[in-house]
């Protein structure tokens, strides 16, 4: 392909990469003020998002000898990542000043994370995927330890780093096995190898496939690979927790789905292997749903609560993955679930960052007591977003769960849906209890003060508008995302 065409195709990614350099430079030149870096990051993200959306309907193209494929899926995901980035740049402003960690580094680290995530979802080569994974993860470790004087933040950074290192190692080992078995690290080559290998999987391939999947199961914290998550969520600065829960989670989950679809599971000779993959996903789904939904009702710290929430989200998503393994089903349920989750989660984490600091304990349930009298608007915003998490109708959270459930029933997973629906009810208790505390209880004397400032409140309002608008009129989103094929 001609160089010009490559540049054209890669334009959103190139803008982002250039923006990182500009932001870095700007923050070095004007050390005393954070505004230039902030502005440059915002501009970069907006340009990236717009240019990704502009080209979204163009056909997919494989570039760099097939190691990256730029398609509708990757473009729409990059646009989503840019949106997340914009919201966390605008929404974190006041939190960072309040915690006295307002450094320009936040902005370029965030941009690097987005670039990593954006490449990761486009990678069609295990090596490129590994590099993208590290590009996304390294800034995340740094950001997790951003509150340098806080031991919990340091603990979170170390835990996240050690885990990330292990994930990288496991992934590399798996890639090596896959290379050994198939003779290539490129997805299409592995796929066609699996089509030709009529004998079905061999042990080396199975081990490699298993390892790369396990690496990402750690990353998305599907039970039983979830134990790191609550501690890291609790210790990391709240906007960074938000980034992990949205940006990193979406990128990792999409990658996980693509890795699961690495071999052609429907080709002859692979029936046993496909069945065992399905069984594994069922086990993971049950474990994540049960652990997430049962433990969440005992949580008093809101960041830990959302950590368990995201563990149970992995469970619902596993149902979507199972449906996508059925011939004729795409990954639309998974994508729609991820989008719906992100729109609510951004608002929730920005809301969480609005409490005034009270030592290093984070936001406890007790801080929400009597909020309706102190701050009615904030109570309404909290309620809408929590309703969406609980899957209440007229919020986007309803459709996302509903779509996952009907497609799972359609692919014959009825018992799992019964379990998932029960877990949804149990965890609804955990999401609705904070609303009860806000509305029905008087303020506890120890309750924290809340104060967000205009910009962070604006971000929450944007998130609420998205949640409600897509909750009332999801047609366009569903139709659009349904048309997006999974890349191989």
């Amino acid at each position, binding site marked *: 392909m001609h160089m010009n065409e490559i540049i054209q195709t890669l334009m959103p990614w190139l803008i982002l990469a250039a923006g990182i350099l500009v932001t870095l430079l700007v923050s070095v030149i004007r050390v005393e003020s954070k505004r230039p870096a902030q502005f440059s990051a915002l501009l970069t993200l907006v340009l990236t998002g717009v240019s990704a959306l502009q080209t979204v309907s163009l056909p997919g193209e494989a570039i760099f000898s097939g190691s990256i494929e730029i398609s509708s899926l990757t473009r729409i995901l990059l646009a989503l990542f840019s949106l997340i980035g914009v919201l966390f740049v605008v929404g974190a402003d006041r939190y960072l000043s309040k915690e006295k960690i307002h450094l320009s580094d936040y902005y370029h680290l965030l941009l690097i994370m987005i670039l990593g995530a954006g490449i990761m979802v486009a990678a069609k080569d295990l090596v490129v995927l590994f590099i993208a994974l590290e590009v996304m993860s390294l800034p995340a470790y740094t950001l997790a330890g951003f509150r340098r004087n806080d031991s919990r933040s340091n603990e979170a950074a170390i835990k996240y780093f050690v885990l990330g290192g292990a994930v990288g190692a496991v992934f590399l080992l798996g890639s090596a096995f896959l290379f050994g078995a198939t003779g290539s690290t490129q997805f299409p080559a592995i796929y066609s190898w699996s089509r030709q290998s009529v004998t079905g999987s061999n042990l080396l391939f199975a081990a490699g496939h298993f390892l790369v999947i396990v690496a990402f199961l750690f990353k998305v914290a599907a039970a039983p690979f979830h134990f790191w998550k609550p501690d890291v969520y609790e210790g990391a600065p709240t906007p960074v927790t938000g980034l992990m829960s949205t940006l990193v989670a979406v990128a990792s989950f999409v990658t996980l789905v693509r890795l699961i679809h690495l071999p052609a599971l429907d080709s002859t000779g692979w029936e046993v292997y496909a069945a065992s993959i399905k069984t594994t996903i069922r086990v993971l789904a049950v474990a994540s749903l049960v652990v997430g939904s049962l433990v969440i009702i005992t949580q008093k710290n809101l960041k830990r609560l959302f950590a368990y929430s995201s563990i149970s989200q992995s469970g619902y998503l596993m149902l979507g993955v199972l449906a996508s393994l059925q011939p004729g089903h795409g990954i639309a349920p998974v994508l729609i679930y991820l989008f719906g989750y992100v729109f609510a989660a951004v608002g929730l984490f920005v809301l969480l960052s609005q409490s005034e600091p009270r030592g290093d304990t984070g936001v406890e349930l007790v801080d929400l007591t009597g909020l309706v009298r102190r701050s009615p608007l904030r109570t309404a915003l909290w309620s809408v977003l929590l309703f969406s998490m609980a899957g209440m109708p007229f919020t986007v959270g309803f459709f996302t769960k509903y779509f996952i459930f*009907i497609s799972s029933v359609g692919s014959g997973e009825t018992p799992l849906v019964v379990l998932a629906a029960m877990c949804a*009810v149990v965890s609804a208790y955990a999401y609705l209890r904070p609303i009860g505390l806000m509305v029905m209880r008087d303020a506890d004397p120890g309750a924290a003060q809340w104060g967000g400032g205009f910009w962070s409140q604006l971000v929450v309002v944007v998130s609420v508008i998205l949640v409600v608008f897509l909750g009332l009129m999801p047609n366009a989103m569903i139709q659009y995302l349904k048309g997006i094929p999974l890349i191989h």
Partner: protein
Amino acid sequence: METSSSLSFLLTIPLLAVVISWVIPKALQRIYAIFGSALILALTVYETSGILFSSTTEAAKAYFVDQRLEWVSELGLSAGFRLDGVSAWFLVLSALTTLVAFYLRGIWYRKQPRLFVSMGFFLLFALNSAFLATDLITFYLSYEAVFIPMIFMVGVWGENQKASAVFRFFLMSFAGSILMLVAMFQLMSMHHAATGQWSSHLPDILKVVANVPVESLLWPGAGFLLAFAIKVPLVPFHGWLKEVYVNAPMPGTIWMSAILSKLGVVGVIRFVLPLFPAVIKEYQGALLAVSAVSVIYAALLAIRSNEGKTLLAYSSISHLGFVMLGLFSLSSEGSNAGVLLSVGHAVTSGMLFYLLHQVEERSGNLDLTTSKGLATAYPVLFSGLFIAVLASVSLPGTLNFGGEFLVLLNAYRASALCTILAALGVILGAVYMLRFFQRLGLGKTGTANPVDVLVKKDLSLADLLMVVLLVGIVIYGGINPGIFMKG
């Protein structure tokens, strides 16, 4: 009147009332609630009068209305409503019950009255939407929406053990409705498999289900039946009921016993019977037996209970057992009799709980072992209670008589044994209701009664008015049972 606008009207008016209740001053909430619900009752009767008062089912059919609004066609979500001979009566009942519940004075008008009134109107909206729904998901959502106000009722104005009552209520009901939801998903995926389209509209589903073998309808049918068996409730799914009824504030109890239990009845008529005729046919014996056992078992529990509210709670289960017996007789006359008896039960149980609250206000408790002889002190109140008791034991000339008679008649064709068993329940019903009245009202005034009991006033004129209205309905319906049977 037969335009679809009447449907949207019946649904939007209660919602509007919810909104208005937030701007009404606290002191005026009761007045607003009473006039608002009376107005809604009048409008409901007016809008449905074509169906309610036409002489035959054929004549009523001219007024049936179907409406369907597309929502998310990609996922088969639409809002479908149908006003017919069954739903019309339940709409009137839910408005009437709301009026009765709002009419009661109590702590709910002193503690957070705005929340109480808005939740009451929201409940009315959710009930109406559930009674009208012909779309699986619309029905499910309305069915679940009913819980929100009920949880507030018990949680905010409930009595001693409200937390555990709320929890049990929540758990039992959701366990059932989740299975119903999954059953709906199964039906929808059958539709998807057959046509390639998602739809949750009942007529669409019915077309597809007709070609599906009975075995694969067994589980969906069981899901629906279980949800409704919990809701009604049928023995052995009645475990949640006593604690919730007793700990709920009296308006909550009235709503639950008079109208919430009818969600199960309407659900069976609207969804279970048309969707799973073969399944029901196959298990008819078992279903009739469960209904008959409910009648007897709950009546025995009522005989054993020593607290007024508990006794009436069990009597509710017993009467609803009759209703289900009628429905499971699988004849249209049986279904109609079930509707008639549902109306009768709703009105009489509303009246009983209403008057029971008056008794409780005066004697301080409803302990049947200690309080007695209250009729001497409150002749008017106890006259009303006596009429309610007679209506409840299905005295000929009251609404319940026709219902129970026709239910037994139709059930006899299906199963003589179950009918004979259930008929014993009529006798047991007389035993516990008369015992209830005798313990509370008759005899010498007990020493256990607090001294100030006798100085309180008898039934007020306003309360008397409500009793007269309800008695009027009971007797009018007792004379004209035909108007309730247009299913």
